[in-house]
């Protein structure tokens, strides 16, 4: 029987079990790395470095996870803080790495052109709209959860999602049915 996230967390908390934490990383790495790739505008190396830092920070502060939110939501919040800290240090925006974006595209995708356009359109959005769209529309967080992750008011999240969606629809109008 597969252990739940709660079982694995208990093992990490009680014994400091690094294998249990490794399993948690394996389960959550894709959405966390995906979020950071969107935030860093698909700079894959930087996103993976930040994802690594996210999980290490989560491990060090695992006792502060009270189980009030989902573990994934807690991870997103750490990831967003790690990204923000890094952005403050760099004080510069990174551009879209088209070559890397192409090489990362899943070969099984039904329409690689659509994925490319979608990713480019997302990357073209301002950070506050992009992060709200990725959290709510791609990762299925509620507006409430996204507000907690991004540490902004609920109304601002709703506005950012709405504006971001409008811009995306305009940019992707060629793909509309």
């Amino acid at each position, binding site marked *: 029987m597969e252990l739940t996230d709660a079982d694995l967390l208990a093992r990490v908390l009680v014994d*400091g079990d690094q294998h249990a934490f490794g399993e948690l990383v394996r389960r959550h790495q894709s959405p966390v790395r995906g979020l950071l790739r969107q935030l860093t505008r698909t700079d894959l190396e930087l996103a993976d470095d930040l994802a690594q830092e996210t999980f290490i920070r989560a491990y060090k502060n695992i006792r502060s996870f009270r189980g009030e939110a989902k573990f994934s939501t807690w991870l997103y919040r750490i990831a967003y803080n790690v990204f923000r800290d890094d952005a403050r240090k760099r004080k510069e925006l990174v551009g879209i790495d088209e070559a890397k974006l192409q090489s990362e595209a899943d070969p099984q995708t039904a329409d690689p052109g659509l994925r490319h356009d979608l990713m480019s359109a997302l990357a073209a959005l301002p950070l506050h709209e992009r992060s709200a769209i990725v959290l709510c529309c791609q990762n299925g967080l509620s507006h409430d959860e996204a507000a907690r992750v991004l540490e902004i008011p609920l109304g601002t999240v709703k506005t950012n999602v709405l504006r971001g969606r409008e811009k995306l629809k305009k940019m992707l109008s060629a*793909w509309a049915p």
Partner: protein
Amino acid sequence: MNEPPVTEDWLDVRLREEAPYIDDAGFSKRVVTKLPDRRSLRTQRAVIIFLAAVFSVVIAYFASGEGWFVREAVARALTLSPLLVLGSAAACGLLLSAAGLWAALARGRGQAT
């Protein structure tokens, strides 16, 4: 309540469908090799607390006229009857045991939920 904004709008469907699954490709192993040893974290914390305690005691000693009140307390304790000293020690022991038991039960309840 703000539920996840799942709708059948074509953009939402596309955003969900086109979110690529990122293959682990050794990522979790790399993270695990870089995790700090929890024992070293605990030792580090204990050393910091111990040093802070020693530092506070030294400051308190000099700030209070080289601990005259401690010498006075010891001198006063020596004049007390052995029965009273024994009674006080037993009361302190019981109090500490009760606090320890309460903390253990609280921790046990926290882990069970």
